[in-house]
């Protein structure tokens, strides 16, 4: 049996996945990128190999992806995370036609054709509004963990609106809402709504077509997925571990080469 690997080093986290010929995930690992993206990627890869009980020599091909993809000169090939997320998710959900990948710095909406081929895509412009970074900063301001912010948002009572989509101004707005005595769940929900609104207009640029799926670390934010489903009007399929879909897709692409 041959083995393949994908390494996805994004703007915030490094992910690695090792698969077999049947696309079965044998080992995976997620860790923060930190200062050195190459080291983080190699580290994540080493951990994924350990979990799979394999050695580097057992792996037939590796594809690197994500912002730092070009640093992995040892990789068999480099592909953008757009192609990789699309490929990975289409293995998990073969009927996917629209995919939303929201990571730390970028949000992407993709229109997907047969075999996970990307027909069209849209990306946020150069600004962290509508990305994971926005939520991370807000969670920090509210003194919550990421899961905590999502849970809090789901128990909101009153509809508040965050007027700023800018991360910097948004943070000061959150602090002033707190000082006005607004509750943490209500503010959390306002944050989720603001980011969901940005994402909906992004998805509309490529057109909303069923089935719809979501990947990237932000797909773990249950409040966000639920708000997006309400706004779009359809169910959103989320893979068991959405954050590693880019690395998984990269491994699947490695197999094809």
């Amino acid at each position, binding site marked *: 049996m041959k083995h393949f690997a994908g390494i996805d080093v994004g703007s915030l986290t490094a992910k690695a996945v090792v698969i077999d010929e049947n696309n079965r995930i044998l080992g995976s690992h997620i860790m923060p990128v930190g200062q050195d993206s190459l080291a983080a990627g190699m580290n994540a890869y080493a951990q994924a190999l350990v979990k799979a009980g394999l050695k580097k020599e057992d792996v037939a091909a590796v594809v690197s992806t994500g*912002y730092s993809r070009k640093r992995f000169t040892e990789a068999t090939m480099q*592909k*953008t*995370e*757009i*192609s990789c997320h699309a490929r990975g998710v289409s293995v998990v959900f073969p009927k996917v036609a629209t995919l939303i990948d929201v990571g730390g710095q*970028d949000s992407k909406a993709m229109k997907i054709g047969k075999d996970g*081929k*990307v*027909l*069209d*895509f*849209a*990306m946020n*412009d*150069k600004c962290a509004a509508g990305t994971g970074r926005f939520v991370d900063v807000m969670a920090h301001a509210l003194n919550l963990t990421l899961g905590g912010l999502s849970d809090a948002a789901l128990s909101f009572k009153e509809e508040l609106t965050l007027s700023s989509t800018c991360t910097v101004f948004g943070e000061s707005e959150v602090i002033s809402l707190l000082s006005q005595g607004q509750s943490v769940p209500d503010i959390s929900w306002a944050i989720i709504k603001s980011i969901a609104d940005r994402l909906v207009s992004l998805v509309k*640029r490529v057109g909303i077509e069923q089935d719809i799926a979501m990947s990237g670390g932000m797909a773990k934010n249950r409040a966000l997925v639920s708000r997006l489903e309400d706004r779009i009007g359809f169910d959103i399929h989320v893979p068991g571990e959405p954050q590693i879909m880019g690395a998984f897709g990269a491994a699947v692409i490695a197999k094809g080469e």
Partner: protein
Amino acid sequence: MTKFRVSETMKEMMASYYLEAKNAAYNHVPVAWITSGGPVEFLHAMGVIPVYPENYAPMCSITRVSKDLIEVSEAAGYSSDLCSYARTDIGADMTQGGPILGLPKPDMLIVGTNICHTVVKWFEVHARKYNVPLFIIDMPYLHDGMTKEAINYVVGQFEAFKTFLATTLKRPFEEEKFREALFLAAQVSELWEKVLAMGKKRPSPLNSFDTFIHLAPIVTLRGTQRAVDYYTQFYNELEELTAQGFGSVPDEKIRLLWDNLPIWYKIKYLSEFFAQHKAAFVVSTYTNSWAAIQGNIDTDHALEELARAYLSPYINRDFKYRIDYLVRLIEEFSLDGIVFHSDRSCKPYSLGQYMIKEEVTKRTGKPGLIIEADMNDPRVFSDAQFETRAEAFLEGLEK
């Protein structure tokens, strides 16, 4: 970027053009600053040297000084939302900076609004500083195709422009020389069109990064014999190259259209990036605009024809026209897709691109990519963000 034999000729020609302009005052020759879509034939008729802030601004960008010049004008209070050509030019004027240490002092300023209205306010700044007359030729945006009214409206202003020149220069307007300039300008535009049509060849002997550079003479020297000679030479060289099967992008696999202005300070990087991916820009709406300015001079209605020509550039046309035009180019140039540069500075060019892209894809099945950048302000460009978007787009085009 491709090294042509004529590339050297162009360098020499542009150098002597700027030298003449710089020495104009010494030689008692009047200088006019004029916008890129301004009707330069009138100036040539009167022996006025036209000088283009919109040519000098990209020169500053390519030589990597636009950022510093932009910072100068921003520090003086000009908004960062203002077109970066204006910010570069005003900064260059304030400091007498850039590759030729500032443009020669103008004797008059000529604005055509067939590109945008920013140019009006921008040239007004210069008019106040230099205390010279400013002549504005209002060329209305064609919301609904070419109309007789628009043409007549512009013809009226062309007549007034003749009077303005005669009054300002205190000598009669030279109709004979005007006819000659019209004749030469029409010839140049026709030659430029033929040069650009070489992009239809597969592989294409030239690409848009080449034509962006070789655009300089048609912008600055349209209406002169020099420009006619130059593009004749260029065209002949291209014919030779195609006969040898030469492609400007080695192993050309993907054929693309570039929409909007170039990203000047990144032109070398972009040219290498796309060449590495075997993608050639074989046509661009931007360079095509100077082929559109093509007056028919074999007529008694030369001014009408000239007005029609100057109203024609892509940037002055409505969205429906733009969509039909792009669809036609996809067909004519056998394109695989379109790259839309969404230019933060140039609102009239960038407005509507998302919708245009969607419509064109719907009609042709050919995808588009939008790149957010700016033609002259390098602070807006991020290599990593660009590469992710562009590579994803090219991965989708791989056959």
